[in-house]
């Protein structure tokens, strides 16, 4: 094999590996959308002055700030590991009467130990930082705090967000990874995430 053919084959291999990585990411997300369990969360404005950043809006949810009681007695007192993994949080969600799911329990590092009721969904998030034992709430991100917009539509949606109640349908994978699935204005569907 000549040097130039070897180089071309190496280049082809690199291209296929990188395309493979991207495809794997896309298939992984599509799988969550297709097979993940659905929960509905209520959208809350994050910071009224800075909702729109570039071409996406920042979103908060009714489970973005978790009351400390959800973590139980021991949950709040232990210090987190210094590594990022020490801030992983699992929150147990249960459907409410109005269709919006609420947090019923939370734990760090693993799903809450108590046996779940049928229909409950454990969603994985990351605490932004770990407040001390006297804190009353923990701020958690789930990787669904961002909604990309078609160019120029940001301001309109931002204004609406402050006036009306929006809901987000979220797909949750078996390991707790959350993925935005559909965006509702009241009961009207305004965006639905295609599989691919």
């Amino acid at each position: 094999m000549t040097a130039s053919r070897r180089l071309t084959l190496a280049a082809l291999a690199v291209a296929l590996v990188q395309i493979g990585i991207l495809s794997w990411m896309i298939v992984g997300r599509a799988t969550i959308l297709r097979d993940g369990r659905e929960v509905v969360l209520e959208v809350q404005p994050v910071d009224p002055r800075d909702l729109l950043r570039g071409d996406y809006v920042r979103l908060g949810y009714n489970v973005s700030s978790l009351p400390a009681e959800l973590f139980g007695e021991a949950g709040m007192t232990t210090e987190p590991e210094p590594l990022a993994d020490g801030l992983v949080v699992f929150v147990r969600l249960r459907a409410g009467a109005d269709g919006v799911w609420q947090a019923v329990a939370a734990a760090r590092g693993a799903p809450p130990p108590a046996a779940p009721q049928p229909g409950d969904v454990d969603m994985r998030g990351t605490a932004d930082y770990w407040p001390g034992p006297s804190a009353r709430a923990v701020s958690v991100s789930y990787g669904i705090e961002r909604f990309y917009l078609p160019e120029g539509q940001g301001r309109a949606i931002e204004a609406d967000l402050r006036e009306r109640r929006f809901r987000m349908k979220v797909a949750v994978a078996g390991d707790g990874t959350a993925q935005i699935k559909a965006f509702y204005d009241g009961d009207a569907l305004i965006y639905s995430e295609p599989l691919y």
Partner: protein
Amino acid sequence: MASYLSTLRNDVARWRAAGLIDARTGEALLRDAEASHGRGISFGSVLSVLAAVLVGAALLLFVAANWEAFPRMARVALIFVGILVGYVGGAALKARGHAGLGEALWLLAAVAFGAGIALVAQMYQLSGDEAQAVLVWCAGTALAAIALRSHPLTVGAVLLAGAWLLMTATAAGTHDQAPLSWLALAAVLWAVSLWTDSSPSRHLLLLSAMVFAWLVYVDSDSLRAPAILAAVSVAAFALGIWRPDESDRILRLDGALPVHGLLGFIAGMSAIQFEYYDEPEFVYVAIAVFAGVVAALVLAGRSGRMLRWLAYAAFVYELGFVYIALIGTMLDTASFFLAAGLVLALVAVVITRIERRMAAAAAAAGGRP
């Protein structure tokens, strides 16, 4: 240079066809020509790399603009085609002797991979962990650098690793600590840079290591990291002075180990000075820095202009530091300008004399620079 190589390639093919030379001679001729002409930076290759960076930036902006005219799968396909054409086309160009253009296409393909990661995040509304995305981008680029033995791609991977370090260390709240795993990443990239023969990558890695020590210092508020940095830098400087050939054979830094040693020493000692800013110990640290700079000048001033100018700059920097910390409160503005003027004039005289003596010594040694 590339054009000469492609001309030669055609000639060799013609000579072989005409039976003037055999295949082995042809290969040997081409290898020799590539070894002596393929290296070095030509204006054309610099321009093509710059062009690649610009087109890459356009590609990134194109995706970031969330252009709705294309269906999203078309955008993904565009990225995939960009990656495929970039790598394979770059290899084809390089094989034909257009090394600069080939490398530029590879860079473009690596940028397309990064744009692809951003596109997936945009398609599926992913938030958070941009640092993770940059790390994946860095790993993909490093892989390409290894497989294609590419120097520019190695530099790209090193820069992405630096970006990951900064993003992780400054991320709001989540894990605001300089990641120790960067050291492992840097070690891997160092090995890659030896394989791809990319000494700029090694220089950048050493500079990143100094930034890393500073980030650890700022995060932990402990002087351990800067102290280690200063000590290792002194050792590196000593090694570079007393065993220049051996150390360069192992580290392959183009003989710049003393320069990095001096820079690391200044960076480490600066952190220590910041810590002792209002304490009486400040004077001793300042004296140590001045002594270090003068020692570097005396011991290694001969080894290169770069080191001398770094030493002069460090001297002036340290003077400013000491002035702000100590004397600033004692002198009024007018006397400061007078004192600064006198000191700078003195420094200028000293620099001129050292440089003249260096030039004379170089001339006496037979015109070596």
